[in-house]
């Protein structure tokens, strides 16, 4: 089983897009068959899975930090559940909401300590 990222109709391991802030970027996870693509044993332990793991996000080269990956990536599944995790193992979508007017303010907003 191999998951692929599609951007502009092409497979890619990662991608970059030109954005004008403020904006929203939506990442859609689709085509996963939960019966076939997640193999579990009789005890419910996952033996093999199909997923996308987001390993990094940058805005103009600026990394919003590890907390962003683990606290701000929210996958909304097709049945409406919200999973906060960079590990995308269900069909659904992730909205990257960038509501700040500039790159600096957006990155700092993501890295806010308050």
């Amino acid at each position, binding site marked *: 089983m191999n998951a692929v990222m599609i951007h502009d109709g092409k497979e890619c391991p990662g991608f970059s897009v030109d954005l004008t802030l403020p904006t929203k970027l939506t990442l859609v996870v689709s085509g996963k068959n939960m019966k076939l693509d997640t193999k579990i044993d009789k005890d419910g332990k996952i033996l093999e899975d199909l997923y996308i793991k987001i390993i990094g996000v940058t805005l*103009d*080269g*600026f990394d919003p*930090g590890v907390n962003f990956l683990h606290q701000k990536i929210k996958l909304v599944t097709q049945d409406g559940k919200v999973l906060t995790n960079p590990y995308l193992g269900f069909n659904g979508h992730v909205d990257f909401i960038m509501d*700040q007017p*500039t*790159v*600096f*303010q957006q*990155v*700092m*907003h*993501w*890295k*806010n*300590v*308050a």
Partner: protein
Amino acid sequence: MHIDCLSNPDNQQVDVIISTVPWTDSAIPLMAPAALKPMVEQVGMTCLGVDFNVEIYNATLYQHESTASKQSQIFYNADVYNLVPHKSPGHLINFFFHGVGHPDINDWLYDMFESAARAMLSWKPKFIGLSLFSYVSRHSCEWLCYHIKKLSPDTKIIIGGAGCLEQFTGPSTFADNMLERGLVDYHIRGDGEHALKQLLLGNTSYPGINSVDWKEINNQELAKLPYPDYSDYDFTRYKKQMLGIQGSRGCVRACTFCDYITNWTKFQWRTGEVIFEEMKLQYSKYGIRVFQFQDTLTNGNLKEFNKLIQLLADYNESNPSESFHWGGYYIFREQSANDEEMWRTMAKSGAQILSVGIENLNEDIRYAIGKKFSNKSITFHIEQARLHNIRLDLLFIVGYVTETQHHIDQAKIWLDNHVQYQDKILLSWGGTLGIFPNTWLDRNKARTGTIMIGNSPQQWVNPSIGSTVALRAQWVQDLIEHSEKLGYNVMSNQIDNHFVLEQLINTDV
């Protein structure tokens, strides 16, 4: 945001801007732009050399009472500097250290970077040189460069200074990353005066420009360097009316822990006469008579040091209302016959605060480090300093590779027995010993029995004597608490103690 030092009401043009980058905990002017401005002018270019840091430093100063400032009350001139406090200075400092945001500061910081970039570019410079005093300037540097390059991709940006380097030797991850991302065009390391000059002349293959290797300035070259030009500085902004000055580069000692000497391998010095002439010239230009030596030691070359203090003492005697004062790093030597006279002359020369690397209060450890002066000599020098009303800042490193609990106990006994000096000395326990690349300690790990257990220089153990990271961190805390309990002045150093506090939390290391 109006950034005073960069304002350009007459729409002037310069070829080069050299600026400091916030944030440095300094209540005195940072030297680099003033030192480099004349080098730029030597190649026929115009230059604006400014200390941007001070304006932002003042904004954070309201609540952040600088440790260094607290201990230098003697130099204060608190009524004259302009203070523009930010409402959340703590969050600002957190940004400078860690690059993190907060709703109270994000807009303000954006405005600062955008305004600084626009103000710099209003001068239409071909080059912008940014000086990073320490790693605390890195987040600012990154964002400032980003804003400059967004507005003017063709303006060449040069970075330099110790703040670009993780360690004195080896590659700089920070600078390499900035180069790869196109945020800067050049990184100068080491002695920057000649490298900058060569870069401006188009010789970008000169050692030190985007390279690990660089060329040390020798004695003759050091003597020929022009005096720093502070004409673009606004002295009303500084809490302390004091100028930096350099008497030497490198060190006469070869301490086992020191990575400074792996970078500056030779001791280079200026003559007493040249230093004295610079002091007089700066006083005539800026009216400032207090100098802080920025080199690692003022008395490395005793002959020149004695000449300097005699010149200053004679001058001060003849000009009591315009006397000079100075402070700087100083080394103790074994007591000699001339020392009482030297302390008398030092006092007359205007010495006020001397920072001395004692490192350890146990002779055996100090000797092993390479500092061969006895405890008896330490007491002699402290007594002389007390007699002549010269303040001593004593600097220590806790947890040498041979240090045990016995040594810590002995240090406490020393403190118990010297409480009479508590108001004349300041104790700076610093952090714990780090084993830095290319130092003697690094090259002799097998001999000393030390084993690195992590990437940080402080992450080492010596199983033969049970020395661990957590134990050494605990020793620092013990010594701080013991000396505070006895009434000593103790330096609280946020940067050095960060590692110690981390280790106290993470005691399983």
